[in-house]
């Protein structure tokens, strides 16, 4: 490799230049990221570090579901909420005793005042939105107060003085469907206060203030603070803990393992320097380019670190095995690099491709994650190639004393003996493994076949599911609060179902024609003259008005004027009748006042509750029913939707005489054309939300809502489902794409499709086994698991590359696999094993992270690496034995067949890569794409056949074949 020689040559000639340029460039990047973060505002042209813990950002901001979600949140004045649950398990009346309710009252009063001026923006406030605060002392109750009398009052006007009064509050609250299961638990042991926030980024501050207040209050009650915004803020805190604990821990473990294998402190510092530089440079670039530190990007350091060490370990391992005493260091380095440059280039490139393929997943944080790790891997590669040689030659001679593997260890100290023994056992183990794969290749391949069959069964059992709350470990306060509150209440996971009437039911012309007919009809009953004049106007204006609303506006303007001019009382009354008629026409569009519509919504709600996932749903229907019941009798038999539209309208206007009339507009828009059902789910699992979505779709398919009402979901629980779906599909395609690219690279590297396939086998088996295990263990296929497929692809292929490259080097000298395998199972297998151990264990500190996704990633990456290592060391040699004839062709004919096969397979793979990528970027349907692809493959195959028939090619093939034989 000429470039490799040139790079290493430069590093050896100008080692100091290399060291200084590395230190300098890294420092500049670090400063560019650090300065604006430490002194914000001083460097307006630079980006500062920004943290983003919002799961919504898993989807791009312009994703339709997010746009709709935000629009509906605005329209229905819905806000993110902090939920404060108060539980009293000891009192016989639960929370409904004077002391607890007194504290709840005090907390509510305290929460009302949790507002402050936005920093830097005087007169703009942020904090708790008092008018929408839901607490016993901020919600109303309507009840019977003697015959013919109703009373409206606060549910809890003031803290009750007696147990009796406290129990009375419970009884009153339990009667109100909106409150039961939301404000209070059915068993009376818990109440919840809902604190809507002006923006979710202040939730941590609000939660902290609440905790302070709670400490002041005393008492035996349990308090649980939850709600999505709190979870997110907490997540941000935990994320940094992860970076502060897990990344250094990984560094430490790698350091200890390197020390164990190579024993020389001064030598093993170099890979750690490369790792540190790669991490600092990548993270700085992340900040400099204005990316946020998100749940995904916070994992970048922990990924780069082991990968960065990987190549350096190969160099050290080889150098360690070759270097003897006072040998010429420079010469040894050159030899090592000559052997390793190509495999290292390819392993780095394949790792890069594996991560970069994540850029094809339609999830911005995953894209950033993949691209920046790819960048980090390249940075690590560059410095490994030039810095490690420079570092080795710069070391004083004394530092290298005693470095290198010695077969005959004389100076025996206890520690060293143990180490040598382990090294020895690794040697022995590998030699035995080599023999086993040679003698029992059939058994090895049979076992692999069985394992794959088991994996296939496991994969078929994979359950796709995620739940951001479960990203916290089960003992985390957020999870505890979640569990306790879901035990007591109808559900803490909100989802919203928007029911909307399509915009234009009728165009102006049709409406005008209908209106004219209705006017005629009404004119027969009363005031014929007035209605005739109105019809006249309708006919005249029908063509001019832009929409039915404008026509009615003009009509009522006209009627008002005429009413003002009326000379007699009768005439005046007639015009009043006309105005009333026009207004009624206007109200025809108020779909969600129609009893039949409300009844249909009520049935939908019943269906929702049958799913078992929805603890409760609330809507305008519940407001209507509750107010109606309390106006009529207060008895539950009257908890029904009244049977006329006017009755609904009058019930609703009565509701609006309350202290919280605006509550209505959380459930229906003032034009009564959009209504929202608020669902409380018992579980935030995507799978459960999906089941609800499906149940609703099926139900509405069978019994559609009247008036053409359409339905659409929003709310974070639903958004999670959407991004999960995109992620699963996106990841699969990203994986397919990068699999094919890596395969092409391997084919190119070895100039043979067969060798290319061979290189893919260990990682394919590994991934199959890992995902099979996930299916068998019943672990949900969630975000981290999905990301792993692409990661393992880039990492696991490394071992195969090293193994195959070294084998190809060794084979011609040995002449047969029988003679070659003992050599292959010497130094090359040792380098791979050391790598598996160092890197695999290097990921394990992620288990220390407080967040579950990090733990998952840590465990699975470690298992993937170990599985890939084992697969490489056992499967490849077994295949070598079986396929030796094809892998090392001895006749011209076979070589030609191999060539043609390579050309054909590469062509097909190339076309597939292009197809997969086109599909990602242009969203073309598979059918048309397949036809095009098929055509392309045939054309390319023809080209393969023709080109292989060229004389020059034939001659070359022949010669090559003869050389071999």
């Amino acid at each position: 490799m000429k470039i490799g020689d040139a790079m290493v040559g430069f590093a050896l000639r100008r080692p100091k230049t290399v060291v200084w340029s590395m230190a300098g460039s890294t420092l500049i990047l670090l400063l560019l990221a650090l300065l604006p973060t430490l002194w914000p505002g001083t460097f307006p042209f630079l980006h500062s570090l920004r943290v983003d813990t919002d799961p919504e950002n898993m989807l791009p901001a312009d994703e339709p579901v997010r746009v709709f979600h935000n629009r509906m949140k605005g329209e229905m004045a819905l806000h993110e909420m902090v939920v404060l649950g108060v539980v009293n398990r000891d009192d016989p009346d639960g929370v409904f005793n004077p002391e607890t309710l007194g504290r709840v009252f005090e907390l509510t009063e305290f929460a009302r005042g949790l507002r402050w001026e936005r920093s830097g923006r005087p007169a703009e406030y942020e904090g708790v939105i008092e008018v929408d605060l839901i607490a016993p002392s901020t919600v109303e109750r309507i009840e019977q107060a003697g015959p013919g009398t109703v009373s409206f009052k606060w549910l809890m006007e003031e803290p009750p003085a007696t147990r009796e009064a406290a129990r009375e509050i419970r009884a009153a609250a339990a009667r109100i469907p909106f409150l039961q299961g939301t404000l209070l638990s059915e068993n009376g042991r818990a109440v919840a206060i809902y604190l809507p926030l002006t923006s979710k980024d202040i939730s941590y501050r609000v939660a902290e203030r609440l905790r302070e207040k709670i400490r002041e209050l005393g008492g035996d009650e349990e308090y649980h603070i939850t709600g999505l915004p709190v979870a997110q803020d907490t997540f941000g805190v935990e994320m940094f803990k992860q970076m502060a604990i897990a990344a250094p821990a990984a560094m430490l473990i790698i350091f200890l393992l390197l020390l164990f294998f190579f024993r020389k402190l001064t030598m093993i510092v170099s890979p750690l320097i490369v790792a540190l530089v790669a991490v600092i440079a990548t993270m700085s670039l992340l900040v400099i380019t204005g990316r946020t530190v998100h749940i995904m990007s916070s994992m970048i350091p922990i990924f780069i670190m082991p990968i960065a060490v990987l190549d350096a370990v190969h160099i050290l391992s080889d150098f360690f095995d070759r270097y003897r005493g006072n040998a010429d260091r420079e010469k040894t380095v050159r030899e090592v690099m000559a052997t390793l440059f190509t495999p290292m280039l390819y392993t780095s490139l394949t790792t890069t491709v594996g991560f970069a393929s994540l850029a094809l997943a339609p999830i911005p944080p995953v894209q950033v994650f993949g691209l920046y790790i790819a960048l980090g891997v390249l940075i690590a590669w560059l410095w490994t190639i030039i810095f490690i040689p420079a570092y080795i030659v710069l070391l004083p001679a004394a530092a290298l004393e005693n470095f290198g593997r010695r077969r005959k260890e004389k100076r025996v100290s206890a520690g060293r003996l143990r180490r040598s023994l382990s090294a020895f056992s690794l040697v022995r183990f590998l030699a035995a493994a080599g023999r086993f794969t040679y003698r029992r290749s059939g058994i090895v391949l049979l076992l692999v076949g069985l394992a794959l069959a088991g994996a296939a069964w496991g994969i078929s059992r994979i359950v796709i599911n995620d739940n951001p709350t479960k990203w916290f470990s089960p003992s985390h306060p957020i999870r505890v609060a979640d569990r306790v509150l879901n035990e007591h209440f109808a559900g803490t996971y909100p989802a919203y179902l928007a029911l909307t009437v399509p915009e234009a039911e009728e165009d102006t012309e049709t409406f005008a024609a209908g209106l004219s007919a209705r006017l005629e009809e009404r004119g027969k009953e009363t005031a014929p003259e007035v209605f005739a004049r109105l019809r006249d106007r309708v006919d005249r204006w029908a063509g001019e008005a832009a929409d039915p609303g404008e026509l009615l506006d003009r009509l009522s303007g006209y009627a008002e004027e005429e009413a003002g001019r009326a000379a007699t009382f009768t005439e005046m009354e007639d015009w009043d009748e006309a105005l009333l008629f026009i207004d009624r026409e206007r109200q025809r569009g108020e779909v969600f006042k129609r009893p039949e519509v409300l009844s249909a919504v009520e049935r939908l709600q019943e269906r929702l509750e049958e799913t078992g996932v929805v603890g409760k749903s609330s809507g305008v229907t519940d407001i209507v029913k509750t107010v109606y019941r309390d106006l009529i009798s207060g008895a539950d038999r009257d908890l029904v939707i009244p049977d006329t539209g006017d009755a609904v309208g009058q019930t609703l206007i009565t509701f609006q005489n309350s202290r919280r009339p605006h509550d209505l507009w959380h459930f229906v828009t003032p034009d009564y054309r959009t209504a929202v059902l608020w669902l409380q789910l018992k579980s935030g699992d995507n799978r459960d939300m999906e089941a609800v979505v499906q149940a609703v779709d099926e139900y509405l398919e069978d019994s559609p809502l009247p008036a053409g009402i359409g339905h659409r979901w929003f709310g974070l629980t639903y958004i999670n489902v959407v991004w999960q779906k995109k992620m699963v599909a996106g990841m699969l395609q990203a994986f397919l794409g990068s699999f094919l690219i890596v395969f092409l690279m391997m084919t190119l590297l070895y100039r043979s499709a067969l060798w290319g396939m061979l290189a893919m086998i260990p990682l394919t088996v590994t991934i199959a086994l890992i995902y099979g295990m996930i299916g068998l263990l019943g672990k949900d296929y969630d975000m981290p698991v999905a990301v792993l497929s692409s990661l393992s692809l880039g990492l696991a292929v490394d071992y195969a590359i090293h193994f195959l490259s070294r084998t190809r080097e060794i084979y011609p000298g040995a002449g047969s696999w029988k003679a070659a395998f003992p050599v292959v199972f010497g130094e090359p297998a040792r380098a791979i094993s050391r790598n598996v151990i160092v890197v695999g264990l290097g990921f394990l500190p992620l288990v220390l992270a407080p967040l579950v996704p990090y733990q998952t990633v840590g465990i699975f990456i470690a298992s993937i690496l170990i599985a890939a290592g084992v697969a490489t060391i056992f499967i490849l040699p077994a295949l070598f034995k079986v396929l030796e004839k094809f892998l090392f062709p001895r006749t011209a004919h076979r070589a030609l067949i191999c060539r043609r096969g390579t050309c054909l397979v590469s062509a097909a793979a190339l076309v597939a890569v292009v197809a997969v990528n086109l599909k990602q970027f242009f969203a073309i349907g598979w059918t048309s794409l397949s036809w095009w692809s098929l055509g392309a493959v045939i054309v390319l195959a023809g080209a393969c056949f023709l080109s292989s028939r060229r004389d020059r090619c034939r001659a070359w093939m022949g010669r090559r074949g003869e050389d071999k034989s």
Partner: protein
Amino acid sequence: MKKLPTSVLVLGLMASFLPSLGRAEEPVDEQATPVPPVAEIVDRANRVAYYQGKDGRAQVAMEITDSQGRSRSRVLVILRKDDSEDPEAAGDQKFYVYFLRPADVNKMVFLVWKYVERGKDDDRWLYLPALDLVKRIAGAEKRTSFVGSDFFYEDVSGRGIEEDTHELERTTDDYYVVKSTPRDPGAVEFAYYTNWIHRESFIPVRTEYFDKNGEKYREYTALGVETIEGYPTVTRSSMKSLKTGSKTVMSYTKVAYDIGLPDGIFTERYLRNPPREYLR
């Protein structure tokens, strides 16, 4: 129904008074316009706002506009009669509120018997024609939304001056600025309110309500004043709820005073049978 001649005098509130509200205060020449005691200011303002004539009628159009600019309207007729024959008395009153529109609440009626005695709840009845239902509302809370608008019942019927203690905060060229603090803070949602009372007409032109944190959260403004039958009358006013961003504008038309409304109208009997001749 007789048509009363209405002499209309627009005081030009928008043009002349309102900008001066925020103007720097100048020392007032006490000699030229003697400042009456605060009790008298408050009493006169209360009469001007709620006790013009012995009885009265107005058709009110309400336009409620929320923070998103969505609006809805109500049209209703308010009949009022003072209990006392004495024109000087500012005592108990009765209100009959009849809904014309929206169409689905047509013929709905509220009947209110207002008591000025401190702490005494008003009596209120509700008639819902579509439910064929008359209900008395017990312990009627006065500070709840008036049919979904930003006005409270008390803003429509008037707040008893005995409910608060009043102090004259300052006097500007045009206004007495009176700060009123509730005697029973637990019964109301505000901590205090300030009232800009026009010095000549005694019309409250602006009222601002403050909460416990001293923050303004509600604001009433008189937008237009006409003199009708000799009585200065607010014909357009607005109420803003600063916490919800909602605003209601009330426009008074067909205003008439001293129309001789019989007492009998203001009884339960008339809820189902509206006195049509007085509602036009």
